[in-house]
Each structure stands twice: as structure tokens, then as C-alpha cells.
């Protein structure tokens, strides 16, 4: 079980310590409707995309589009990092991209609805490279009436 950095194997912990993380001014948390009335999109940073889409490259802050009906067999991963497990994703898409779990939560009325389109970034981006894309993405989400984003790392 993974835990805090000082409890991890040294090699892995040192790799994670070297990743630069900026600190941002606090962002006010937006209020919203009850979950049963929300429309939720999944935003992954696992470097996922449809087979045939442009693979991610180092420094790439852009996103790829994953329509809700995308068959699991069409999704591949081109994250540049080799420092995380991929066998879980190979076995079960949902362990990295919980699209079927979200679908089930909509079906049992826990969640209002799911977005018609979901998205993936490739998490090893410099934040400034992703910021303009995220701003554009917010507009697309609003156009799809999305009022909640579930951010899933890898």
C-alpha cells in the first residue's frame, strides 16, 4: 500500500520529490446543485486517447477528446512517464478511467447525468502549457452543460 513519500521505496520517493509542484493562490470553491442533479465529466491526466489520435509528446499541455460512447478497446495510453503501473489499466480501463462506474452512478440516480464527452491530458505537462487548454476546455464543458469535473490522475 502506498503511503506518504517517506514510507515509499527510496527510488520511487526520490523520483516523486524531484517533480516540481507550484503553489497557487487559493481558488474559491464554487457551490452547486446536489450530486443527483449534477452533470459530471471525467478529466484524466493519464495520457489517454483513441487509437489513431495524436499521441502525447514531452511538454504537451493539450488534451484529447473521449466521447462517452468510445469503446474500451479504442483507448490507448501514451503518457511519457514510465514511473507508474500500466498493468492495471491493461487489465481494466476503469482502474484509471472510471467511465463505467460513472455510468452506473447515473443509472442508480446517485449522479444526475454524465457528460457527452470526456477528456484526457498527459499529466507530465508544465502547468503553464496546460493553462490555455484548460481555459478552452472549461468553455466546452459549459457548452455540454457540465457542472462538475472529476479529475483523475495516474
Amino acid at each position: 500500500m502506498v503511503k506518504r513519500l517517506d514510507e515509499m521505496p527510496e527510488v520511487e520517493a526520490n523520483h516523486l520529490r524531484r517533480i516540481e509542484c507550484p503553489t497557487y493562490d487559493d481558488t474559491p470553491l464554487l457551490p452547486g446543485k446536489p450530486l443527483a442533479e449534477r452533470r459530471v465529466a471525467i478529466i484524466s491526466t493519464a495520457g489517454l486517447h483513441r487509437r489513431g489520435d495524436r499521441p502525447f509528446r514531452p511538454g504537451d499541455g493539450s488534451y484529447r477528446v473521449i466521447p462517452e460512447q468510445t469503446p474500451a478497446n479504442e483507448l490507448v495510453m501514451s503518457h511519457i512517464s514510465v514511473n507508474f503501473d500500466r498493468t492495471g489499466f491493461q487489465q481494466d480501463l476503469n482502474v484509471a478511467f472510471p467511465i463505467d462506474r460513472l455510468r452506473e452512478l447515473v443509472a442508480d440516480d446517485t449522479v444526475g447525468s454524465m457528460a457527452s464527452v470526456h477528456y484526457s491530458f498527459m499529466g507530465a505537462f508544465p502547468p503553464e502549457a496546460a493553462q490555455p487548454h484548460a481555459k478552452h476546455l472549461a468553455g466546452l464543458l459549459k457548452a455540454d452543460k457540465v457542472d462538475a469535473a472529476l479529475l483523475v490522475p495516474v
Partner: protein
Amino acid sequence: MGALGHFLEREGIPTVGISLVREHTETVRPPRALWVTFDLGRPLGIPDDPPFQRRVVKAALDLLARTDGPIIVDYPEFVTEEADFTGWACPINLAPTEVDTLAAEIDRLAAWYDRASATNGRTTVGVSGLDMPAAGMLVTQALDGELPAAQALKEAVDDLKAYYLEAASAFPDPGTAKTRKEWFWSETRLAAALLALQPKLAASSDPQHRILGNLTLIPATERHRVDRS
């Protein structure tokens, strides 16, 4: 990841994120985070366990009701590590012979890869657009001659790794994910080729080759093998 929470919430989209590295999240301070103790690469915890995954998703989404942030909430469930039977040996004889080649190894795994794809109903191979013999050829050419473009090589290698590990998951006694990765790095000709390729990439005048050689070819946990190879 946490940066996206700031960017989207500031543009009017309420966000909640799963956090895999608490220290990073404590620094970035995104609006809402659910910290989980799962392995990197498995943010929902356990493959093929829908109830477990559903509980994680629900716990994250429940944080959307909070407006008193930034908040980091610790997820209470843990994943116990898969039983790791020491002494597990790959049941398929992949031991190289004098005349063996990377191409032959790739060919030997095809039946197991096909079986894995049929069982899972999917494959994650297919980033490079190459078939596996062609991807293997690219690695061989990189070792023996001119280095191809870093991006093409990276995509081919990622596809080959996925092909090998998916194939191994269909072996008669597949062991655990951990033992299969150990098998990959210690017993396959492909891994030996990647370890031999690393110094060549690191010494290239092309900065993209150096990124590949130094960062995105060999996992940090396997780097110790480079010196030995």
C-alpha cells in the same frame, strides 16, 4: 493534476480530484482532493472490482458539496498487496538460445497476446501504428545503427511493453503484476535491448533522445539494471 483543479474552477467548473501523492497535493492546494494510498497508475484502486471503484468515485464526488476549501480528505480504504509467491518462474520457456533474436521472442509471445486480448476483449497496444515485428525491428535498428526519431521509438517501445505484459497476463500461471514486471525486466530480450539502448540515447546530440534515454525509457525502479547490463 492539481493545477487543472485551479484552472477549471476559476473558469466556473466545480472540480474534485483524486490525489495519489499527498505531498504534491498539499503543495498545489487544488480546491477539493480525495487522497488515496493506491499504487501510481491505479487511482481507482483495484482492477475488475467495480464495487470498490464505485465507492472511490462516490467518495470523491461527495466532496463537491464542500465549499470550505481547499480540502484534502483521506480515503479510508486501502489495497492489500497481491500475494507474491517468491520463486515464481515464467512458465513459458523464453530463455534465449544462441540463435535467438528479439524478433523470435516477439513471435513466440503472439499466441499469448492473442489469448489475453480475447480474454479481456481489448488491448492497449496501438499507439505507434506499427505491428509488433516492425516495432521490434525499430528497436533492433536503433541498437545496431542510426537512432530513429525519439517519438517514433518511444511509441514503438511503449507498444512492445504493453504487448509483452498483456501476453504474460495470459500465461498458464500468470503470477502477479509485480512478478510479471520482474520477468519483463530480468528475463526478456526486449528489456535487455532497452537497457543496452539507454547509454546510446543518453549520449545522443538530440535533446529528445536524451529525454528518452534519461527519463522515459527505463523506470526509476529499474535504473540500477543499466549499470549492470
